[in-house]
């Protein structure tokens, strides 16, 4: 199905979710790496740059940067800024954002904002679109 194995970095603190996404994506031919925290993800991306980053918004544990802030960091990093980012989160876009405005690309530089739960058809379609295929 996919000729060149695109590499996708999944960032989520829900272990079951990471497993499910990893299994699905690998079964359709993507190479998948994962991280449970944004810091770790950026570290990993710098070590071996992925073709796409799938990013959650809310992370458990001590307060650190959320997914949206992380997307900005990635975009601001010259090493990483070419990598497309998709947000996949339980957060509802705009309605759960603190100021209830349609975010612009600068504030949230992502290819897509997907909401959990998501069905495999939709997820795969969005990933392919973001990869430019």
């Amino acid at each position, binding site marked *: 199905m996919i000729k060149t194995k695109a590499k996708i970095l999944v960032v989520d603190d829900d272990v079951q*979710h990471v497993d499910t996404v990893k299994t699905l994506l690998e079964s359709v031919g993507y190479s998948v790496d994962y991280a449970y925290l944004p810091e770790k993800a950026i570290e990993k991306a710098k070590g071996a740059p992925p073709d796409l980053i799938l990013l959650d918004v809310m992370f458990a544990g001590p307060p650190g940067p959320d997914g949206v802030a992380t997307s900005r960091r990635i975009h601001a990093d010259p090493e990483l800024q070419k990598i497309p980012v998709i947000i996949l989160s*339980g957060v509802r876009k*705009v*309605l759960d954002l603190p100021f*209830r405005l349609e975010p612009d690309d600068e504030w949230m530089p992502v290819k897509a904002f997907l909401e959990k*739960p998501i*069905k495999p058809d939709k*997820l795969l379609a969005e990933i392919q679109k973001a990869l430019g295929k």
Partner: protein
Amino acid sequence: MRFAFENMKLQTKTNIGIIAIFLLLGISAGFMTFKWQNDYAIKAAENRVRLYIRAGWEIYNSKIERIQATLKVLAEDRRLQRVLVDRANGELKDEVLHELQAIRLDQNMDILNVLDASGRVILRTRHPESSSDGIGDDPMLRKVFSEKKACGGTVLLDERRLQAEGQDLVELCRRYGGEAVGMMTAAAVPVHRDGRVIGVIQMGNLLNGSVEKVDRIRNSLFENEQYGGKPVGTATVFMRDRRISTNVLGQDGTRAIGTRASDEVAERVLRRGLSWTGRALVVNAWYLSQYDPIRDPDGRVIGMLYIGSLEKRYLDQRSRAIFLNLAVVFGGMVLAMAVFYLLMRTILSPIRRLHLATRRLSQGDLDHRIVVRSQDEIGELSQSFNQMAQQLREDQQEIQQSHDQVERRNEELRIINRNYMEMLGFVSHELKSPLGAAVLGVYSIKDGYLGPVSDTQQRILTSVAQSLDYLNEMVKHYLDLSRLEKGELKVNRRMVNLNQEIIAPSLQGLMPSLEDKGMSIENRVPDNVLLCCDPHLMRIVFENLLSNAIKYGRNEGTIQIETGQAKSGTDTGETVLSVMNEGDGIAPDKLNLLFQKFSRIDHPKHAGKKGTGLGLYICREIIEQHGGKISGESEEGRWTKFTLSLPTLGTRT
């Protein structure tokens, strides 16, 4: 005017009333005082003049009586009697003549004559050498001879008679009377011897030019007083109509002897013999005057006695009296007014306090009380007011307390509800992650991404997937409900394209289930319809309406989305949107229940179609927050239609 009076304060009204009453009283009292004083003063003045002239006559007559008394003593003199009997005794005659001459000068008399029984003058003390012995027609002597008793009075002396007494008297009378006639106050007494009248003795005083008598009258009546440069009173003796003896001063400051009385006075007094009383202009001042006729012993009017009292004095007295009276009246009035005013103030001040207190009460100051100072009706009223205010205060406190209680209870309920909703939101949110993993996992297997699936497996997976979808819907609704109830969802309006930004995104997630049932969408909304709304909230509405339409719609049925202007046609202020599906429909009596929280309609045909009972409630809340309305209609067995109308705040192109 009437309205102005009605609008006045009580104090002003009573003040005006008092002033009006007292003004009326004052004017009438003043008028009466003036009139009474005026009448009284004039009458009093006239009475006074009458008294004066009576006193004048007393003085006038007392002189005559004194002459008469002197003569009566002389008539008893033996030597005088012997002279009358024994004419030849020249020595005795001279002796008596000298004695009588001394008496005449001592008495300051003009004439003193002794006549014999035939009426011939035998002793003429003033002019003994006079050849004439006639006495002419003297009514006084005639009376004495005929009645044989004494007589006093006033007589006129003709020129011959004056001539007999001396040329100087003729000159005197000419000077003080304009003619050779004299007017004399005199008395004559008969001389008796052995019961026979043997002669008459007569003594008199010419009034012409003599001021002694009138000055005595004036001095005893008026004490020669001056008033404003004018004598207070004057007295005059007229011979016929001519002043011969007066203290009236003429223009040149000398006595106005020789001037005449007015024709009116002369006519009444001289011709008709009556008194004249009234105002008279004497030289240059008005006098209240009386003219009385002077008669000779025969009763003929030969002159007038005049007494005048300066009118200005009475007028000034009258003015003073009027002024004093008016001052008393008006002073009393002002005093009464002041007393009345103070009284009214005293009565009105508690009313004013009551008025102010009522106003404060009506402005909400329930703690204000009136100090009750009296036990009268106003005091009672004030007390009642205080009781009323107290009652109001207590009632208000009670109301406030129960109101506070309700408020507290409501606040508690709000807090409970909010806590509950927060918890619901939190739980729902927490469900999302595991749900996400489950949905993705189950669908990955079911849709064959992880390898072939047997039919039985497929059936179970489909069932699990449906349960997960329902669970997902539930989580979504609870989250929306939680957001709504917490009041977090504020409407952020902007102009949005209805098709592109609302309908299309809402349909996106629903396409699989739509295809499952073989249904089709007939979207009749033109591409250029703009709506002023919160797109995220409106998407929730459309997701709910469309997902209902799919869930309860007939297989292979059509869902129609339409738009239009308000049917009412009152204005173009509303945009109407409707979503209709073919299907079993809903009983009309149950349509309204749909919009209630947790409402689920039991319908045999809906068995197995689980709903949260929140979707339409959430729709209604969102639409109402937009200022719009949502309603449902249905024909059972055929179709169901939900219509929402939103105020058009922007333009529709």
